[in-house]
């Protein structure tokens, strides 16, 4: 059973490396993500989307406001809210299998044997990250995160560095892995940060548009189309979201 995520009045500033100035990243974020929902967060670069993810993951503590998961306040890092980093953050000295089993090993649990196959990684178990393509690396990163069965999956532009073909493939892989778990609350809660409106529209139940720094939630779009989606048929909402992003 997954859990919901709420951010209420969240403000956060950080000190800019180099200049030492205090920069307001988030100026009051109010956001509720229901359990089992897939929400995409879009907005111009550097507007604090990553900060939101890090706050939910407990890697940062908000200066003000509340971040809750399943009703309880987020107080730190935990295996129930796993973040998939932009470049995968795979451990280069571990093989594919060792990377994926890192979490289960730490918890003394066995690995779900179907996971490797579900992500198309059968046969690559003994390879090192340096031998993998970008697309394969992100599959491993996804598998590693899913292996600990978190309630909330946080994805920070996971496919941003890939070529168009790999990106499309991996979007499908992510969606399949998510849908496979069942329906409603049986699925993981997912927060996907992306700069691709197309990706957001293809995958998300709702698309949240965040303004540039100091960031607030600008607009929320509901995508009510059945899956798997044909993004070409959703041109109107895509354009609307694009406009909202551009207008900041």
């Amino acid at each position: 059973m997954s859990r919901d995520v709420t951010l209420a009045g969240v403000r956060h500033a950080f000190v800019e490396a180099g200049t030492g100035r205090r920069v307001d990243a988030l100026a009051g974020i109010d956001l509720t993500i229901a359990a089992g929902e897939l929400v995409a967060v879009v907005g111009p670069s550097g507007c604090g989307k990553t900060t939101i993810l890090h706050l939910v993951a407990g890697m940062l503590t908000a200066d003000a406001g509340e971040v809750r998961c399943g009703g309880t306040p987020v107080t730190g890092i935990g295996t129930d809210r796993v973040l998939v980093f932009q470049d995968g953050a795979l451990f280069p000295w571990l093989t594919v299998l060792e990377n994926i089993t890192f979490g289960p090993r730490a918890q003394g649990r066995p690995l779900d044997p179907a996971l490797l196959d579900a992500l198309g990684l059968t046969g690559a178990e003994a390879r090192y990250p340096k031998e993998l393509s970008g697309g394969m690396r992100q599959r491993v990163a996804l598998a590693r995160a899913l292996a600990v069965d978190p309630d909330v999956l946080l994805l920070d532009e996971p496919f941003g560095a890939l070529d168009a073909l790999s990106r499309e493939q991996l979007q499908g892989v992510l969606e399949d892995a998510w849908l496979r778990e069942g329906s409603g609350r049986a699925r993981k809660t997912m927060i996907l940060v992306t700069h691709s409106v197309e990706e957001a529209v293809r995958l998300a139940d709702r698309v949240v548009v965040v303004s540039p720094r100091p960031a607030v939630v600008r607009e929320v779009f509901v995508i009510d189309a059945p899956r798997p989606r044909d993004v070409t048929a959703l041109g109107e909402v895509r354009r609307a979201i694009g406009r909202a992003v551009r207008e900041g």
Partner: protein
Amino acid sequence: MSATERLAGAALGGRRLPGALGIAALLAAWALAAARWPPHVLPGPDVVLRTVLDERALLLHNAARTLWRVALGYGAAVGIGLPLAGLLAGSPLADRQVGSLLTLLRAIPPFAWTPILLLWLGIGDGSAAIIVFLGALFPIVRQARAGFAAVPPALLLAARNLGASPRIYWIDVVLPGAAPMVFSGLRLGWALAWMSVVAAELVGADGGLGQMILDARNLARPDLAIAGMVAIGALAAASEGLLTAAERHTLRWRP
């Protein structure tokens, strides 16, 4: 490449041949020089070779003693240095305080401690091992500390996110992440360890290759001295080769 270069290249071919020629030239120069001086001043390569074979028992015995001291001192440097580096990397306060202390101590050439150590501990394995320890410690600590600090933060966060216990965190994530720089420190420390042990043995140790070389000079047996130096060189080179091989294997994941 100039025309001369190209011609020479065609004549000599590759780098192995010139290298071998260079060494041959060195040996020839040595033999020539040795012919002009009496054997108790400058023995030729043939004399040295004979000595190496004749005295191999002595050489092996002393080599073992020297190796023992190096191993002792180096082992201590690694055993103390790596955790110390971890401490310095993890605690800014410790880093500043202990770091300053280390900077001061590092400036003293290890060998300068010899008289004090001889005074406190007398001649023997202990003093030599401590000199080795002092020689190897600082590069090991410095490189390891830099290595620990250079592990990408995303990897550290990911490890904690996936539920790594402190043990797994340090042994399976931080240490491998720091391994490349740690190894460079280990290699540097090993080279300095050898320098230190020879220096220490020259002054105050019983037995060992360094002392043997000194004795050889006193006995006007430069052939033995050179034999000893060859032994040291061979040991140092072989052990460094082993270290490099271990490094290459451990770091086989590096892109």
